């Protein structure tokens, strides 16, 4: 009962976020290009460690950077993380304030037996959303407005299996069912009667199945090495164009490949409480098939991340029992804007977490403060604060005493 007092309001926020997330998926304004903004996996704990904790065992969260990490779960665990982003995008002349919700990432993990954990969930790989319009002067006619609407979401439903092979090595793999769509609407309208709105819409549906594999190794003491291989995603893309003049409607089928991504990192426990983490993650430049306008503007994406964590202890004062996390990451995007000029995200991250009263479960918070792009190099930048809330609730996955022997 006591536990429900905390879980219910937190879960309510989750549901509210889901509802709002549908209406306001969020990302950087740079996510208007290509597939959208890459959304790195990880619960609020991993976000507050700047996505550096690929080599961290985790017995509380089902949403981790490393699939092999969940092999340490001993209870059925449900994890969800929701992120709110608040930003100010600037160009030389203009400013736009944005508040956005990400669609939540969820994962449920079930220990099949000790050291063997099955998981399934949902996470967004890339996302983008924007609504914008520009006036256009038409000689001899009223002002016209170009109205654009962009909606993109490439997501995956991972089916994971993690195995604690020995005390010093975990392995994991995922079958990823990749789906999603990118829709772009471009309308031209006049704010006067008798003018018909002209509409066009490009819709691209993405469909693929891919694999990923991960390993978490503890060679010695408090030193861990983590690695992730995220296989090439060969999307089947179904593209359709629709116009006000239906005779121009068309469809096309083509393939698009997202190259292999890999991540490698370590975690070192300086003491029992203080840990340092790091990750390097990279994916080679995709072929611009289907994005010909980005020919020469797509580079490799990479992440360099560092984190430091003071883990909680079960004794001492209130603040002593809180974990403290700090991190920094730099993410270079695939898209270059203008061509040849990479777009970098640089964020300082921090966070903490709470043990849910009444039983196993955690509430984690993360704050990311940083900047995407730069006015000098990219013509615009976006200063952003992201607040992440992660909830993990656990229950032992065993038969009740009264059920034994039935």
């Amino acid at each position, binding site marked *: 009962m006591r536990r429900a007092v*905390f879980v219910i309001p937190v879960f309510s926020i989750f549901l509210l976020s889901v509802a709002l997330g549908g209406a306001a998926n969020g990302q950087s304004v740079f996510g208007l290009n290509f597939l959208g903004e890459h959304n790195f996996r990880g619960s609020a704990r991993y976000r507050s460690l700047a996505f550096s904790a690929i080599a961290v065992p985790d017995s509380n969260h089902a949403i981790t950077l490393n699939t092999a990490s969940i092999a340490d779960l001993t209870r059925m665990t449900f994890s969800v993380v929701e992120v*709110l982003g608040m930003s100010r995008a600037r160009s030389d002349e203009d400013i736009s*304030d944005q508040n956005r919700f990400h669609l939540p990432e969820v994962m449920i993990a079930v220990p099949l037996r000790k050291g063997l954990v099955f998981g399934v969930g949902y996470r967004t790989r890339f996302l983008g959303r924007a609504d914008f319009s520009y006036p*256009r002067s038409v000689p001899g006619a009223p002002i016209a407005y170009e109205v654009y609407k962009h909606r993109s979401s490439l997501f995956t439903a991972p089916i994971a299996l993690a195995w604690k092979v020995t005390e010093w090595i975990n392995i994991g793999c995922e079958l990823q069912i990749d789906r999603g769509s990118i829709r772009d609407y471009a309308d031209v309208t006049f704010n006067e009667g008798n003018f018909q709105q002209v509409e066009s819409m490009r819709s691209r549906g993405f469909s693929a199945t891919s694999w990923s594999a991960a390993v978490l190794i503890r060679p010695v003491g408090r030193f861990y090495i983590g690695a992730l291989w995220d296989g090439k995603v060969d999307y089947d893309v179904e593209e359709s164009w629709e*116009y006000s003049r239906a005779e121009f409607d068309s469809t096309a089928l083509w393939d698009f490949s997202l190259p292999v991504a890999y991540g490698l990192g370590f975690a070192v426990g300086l003491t029992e409480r203080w840990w340092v983490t790091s990750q390097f993650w990279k994916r080679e430049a995709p072929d611009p098939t289907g994005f010909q306008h980005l020919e020469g503007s797509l580079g490799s994406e990479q992440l360099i991340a560092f984190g430091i964590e003071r883990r909680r202890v079960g004794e001492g004062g209130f603040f002593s029992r809180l974990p403290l996390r700090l991190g920094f990451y730099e993410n270079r995007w695939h898209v270059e804007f203008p061509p040849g000029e990479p777009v970098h995200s640089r964020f300082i991250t921090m966070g903490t977490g709470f043990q849910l009263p009444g039983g196993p479960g955690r509430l984690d918070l993360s704050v990311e403060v940083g900047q995407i792009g730069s006015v000098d190099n990219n013509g615009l930048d976006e200063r952003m604060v992201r*607040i992440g809330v992660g909830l993990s609730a656990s229950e032992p996955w065993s038969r009740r005493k009264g059920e034994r022997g039935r």
Partner: protein
Amino acid sequence: MLRRTIHILVTGAAVLVACCSSDPEGPVTKKFLEEGTYGVRAGDTYRFVESASGTTVSLPRGVGSSRLLALGDTSGISFEAILIKFDFTLSEEDSGKTISTAFLHLPVRSAPEGTVQGTDTVPFSLPVAFYELLEEFSEDDTITSVPPYDPMPIPDSLGTTERELSIENTDFDIDKSFVEEWIEGTRQHHGVIILVTEEPEALGLIEMNAREVGSDPPSIRVEFTDTTTAAFASVSDYAVASFEGEGLNCVGGIATRVYFDFTLDGLDERAMIHRSNLVLTVRGEDGFGATPGEWTILGLDPSFNYYLYTPQVGDPADPGFLEGTGVDRGSFVAYETKTLRIPLRGFVRDIVGGLRVNTGLVFQSHRGDLLSPR
């Protein structure tokens, strides 16, 4: 402490969620469109103007049931003649009586202002003469020119044939022998035609009741030798009018339609149409909405009601030219200079989309129940 902290965080997050709002991304993201990295861009929006050649096509159209008969000239419209046929059926009690005097009564209702000469005002008048028609006419006919008539005018009792028609001078003595013979049937009565005999000094119309008014129609009134009177009212009357010059009109026995022929070859075949208009300029100085009498006496709306259609066939000589698909209808004030933008709705869109053949547009009068010259 822990519980309170979590409650504060949860409440804070809820407030944050509730307070969120965003600016449009618009101004900032413009760079992505301009650089082309966004990948989707609306095409050009522009105004396409194609001149249309207008051809006036004249068609017969009867206006015999007008409630006013007009004579004179105004705004390029010439009301050349008035035709009146009387019913000379004599009542039984007047049978055998002898006519002492006969008058042609023309119930004038409207005329231009007179001219002031000294302290007097001389009413506007038209020099007219009355003639016998040589052929029957019908109000249902479309009479576009003066029909045949006996060139010898009908004189008055003194032999005078020149008359002055004005708002004050509406009863004209006529030779009683004509009336006697019409009554007796010894002289064919196809009708009387009233013609203007001289070009007046000033333009203007004199308008009088037609039989359709229902009271005080044009009539021939006689006085018998026993001082009793009788009146022979109009049973058919018609104003013959013509229009000089090009343009859209519906006057007298002629209604014109203006045929606009144009191509859209210069338009991008992938163009999507926001709006299309037929743009016309009404030259108010050349326009004419209604006669003063129709306006002030009958209270008719002086607006010009138009109808725009796309003909089945673009050849004015083909009967299919007179039929087609309606595009728009409306009205405008013909005597006010103005640019009309007549919406073409889906017409151009259909042509560009290949759903319709471009046979041009026909602009015509759409009088509805109004029976007035324009």
